[in-house]
């Protein structure tokens, strides 16, 4: 049987505990005043804490060099998704080298559990999970992210380019 030994002497007295606590607070205050750049408190929402690029936040659909969507509508992400929050409608592209592309790609972000399986399933690096993590919105429909939001939202500055390039693969004879 384990017995917890309580700090008897200090706990019986009121003042030493208060002073110890104050000492810690004052120590931090002096440190923050002298090292303002390392201060952890920020003025949210004016200031925001930058998350690492590896953070699994809001999804990004990547684009090709010409700015069109990289996604080929293979539906592997929708198949893998444990929350079943991805719905894709595929269509035939005029260009026979593209063939299939999504005319609608929607993620119900309220259903999403941010597990990252979609990005793992994607064979062409078309979907990634980015560092954005604030998903607040006012109306319900704003929680269903469409192609415009996923690929071309203002924070992405015209779209994130995919690492997989078909033309390059073809020129290498793959």
């Amino acid at each position, binding site marked *: 049987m384990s017995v917890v030994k309580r700090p008897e002497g200090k706990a019986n007295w009121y003042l030493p505990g208060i002073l110890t606590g104050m000492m810690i607070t004052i120590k931090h205050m002096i440190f923050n005043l002298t090292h303002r750049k390392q201060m952890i408190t920020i003025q949210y929402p004016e200031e925001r804490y930058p998350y690492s690029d590896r953070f699994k936040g809001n999804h990004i659909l990547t684009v090709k060099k010409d700015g069109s969507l990289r996604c080929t509508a*293979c539906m592997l992400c929708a*198949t893998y998704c444990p929350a079943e929050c991805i719905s894709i409608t*595929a269509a*035939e592209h005029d260009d026979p080298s593209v063939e299939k592309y999504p005319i609608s790609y929607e993620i119900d972000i309220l259903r999403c559990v941010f597990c990252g399986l979609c990005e793992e399933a994607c*064979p062409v690096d078309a979907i990634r999970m980015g560092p954005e993590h604030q998903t607040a919105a006012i109306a319900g429909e704003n929680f269903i992210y469409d192609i415009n939001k996923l690929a071309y939202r203002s924070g992405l500055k015209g779209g994130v380019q995919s690492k997989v390039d078909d033309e390059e693969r*073809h020129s290498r*004879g793959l």
Partner: protein
Amino acid sequence: MPKLTIDGKPVEVAAGTSVIKAAQTLNIPIAHYCWHEGLSVAGACRMCMVEIEKNPKLQIACNTPVAEGMVVHTNNDKVKDAVKWALDFHLINHPLDCPICDQAGECKLQDYYMNYGLYSPEMNQRKVKKSKAMSLGDRVVLDQERCILCSRCVRFTTEVSKTHELGIFNRGDRCELSTFEGRPLNNNYSLNTVDICPVGALTSKDFRFKQRVWFLKDFETLCNGCSTGCNVTVSYNQNGVFRVRPRVNQEVNGFWMCDEGRDIYKHTNKEFRLDQVIERNDQVGGAAVKGKPVALAIQEIGKSLSATVKKGGLESIALVVTAQYTVEEYEALFELFKNTVKSPHVYYWKNNEEDFDSFDGLLNRGDKNPNTKGLSDTMTKFGFKGTWEDFEKQATSKSFQYVVVAGPEDQSAYPDLEKKLEILNKAGEVIWLSSCKNEKFKNFKWQIPMKSFLEKEGTFVNFKGIKQNIKAGMSIIPTSLSLQEFSKGVFESMGGMA
């Protein structure tokens, strides 16, 4: 009959049977691309290698006839290695565009790679590029890069449809499948080539990119497109029905079905269906009243029918039936008319009479109803003999109070629908039972939603007299009725009058 042993299991088959067929009777799978039971043997893919004892080299199972005392091994290391290498060569120039390939999920290249392959590719050369997404005709798209040149489709157009559109051109790795100049693949059986294609080279324009196959569920039923009654598999999911493929039945359709029959699912999907009761209300100037509960509507119909019967107008109710319902449904409806309504006015509405008896020599018949024979048999059983001509004569000489019409499920098979609707409209108040909606029905007193052939059970009798069952595989319009349910409802609300 020679006796042989395959993988230690003894089997006795007819002389001249190939080893692959003998293995099939034992349910031993042998990898193959080019061999198809309904086509001649090509021996082109070299995948069905088996080891036959006392034979120095491996043999192809599809073209080796069985012999007395043969000992065959289909699954030892030597065979597995041979299949692995055959697969490796098939995949040398394969574009690996599975993400955008419709065949992915039911592709034999994927299946055999998982069963026999699982190697890292050892080829260092550039892949040969060919044409992609070529349109071969109205219904089929070809991707030459994915083609493994098994020649199944070529043999199909030579041996089964006998239209000779497809051929394999050039040699070596520049070998490609294509159509001849100015002769597109437009025969009425072209989509069978898509079914038998073991890879994604031939895909259907209709199904292309609509769904991934792993999102679909299958159930087995019959085609209701014509009186042949081909056995089919229907693929569907929560969004509706997506495709219809033939199922093997040597007695009826063999391995194939026609392209026309592939479209039978289209009128069953939600957007074309009558999904609620529509009543013409004369008190508000003939405006349509929608959404009355089906049970209530049936009750009202039953009451008005029984009122008519009581008024002494025993013969003022007529029934017009099309041959698109099951035998069981006819029986229930005829029972109602014979014993409860007691009207002898039962008429058979025959469609497209000009080409009713035509036949294309393979499967497709001019009679676009699945159950013409079933209907005529049931009518004879109940002693009804009326035809549409009789109905027209009767309707001109005197007018009926009510005309109950078991209307066509597939309206496209009724080219003179509009003309006949006018006659029906003049004949009396129409109670229209149908699964499909149409603006032209707006003058009818009642429109009651019926089940399509995918939602009900029953028997179809084909032109030969073969009885086959359809199954209730799915529910598309939950409020719709079968004719049995309709008859039962009307019978009960008529007070079960005898």
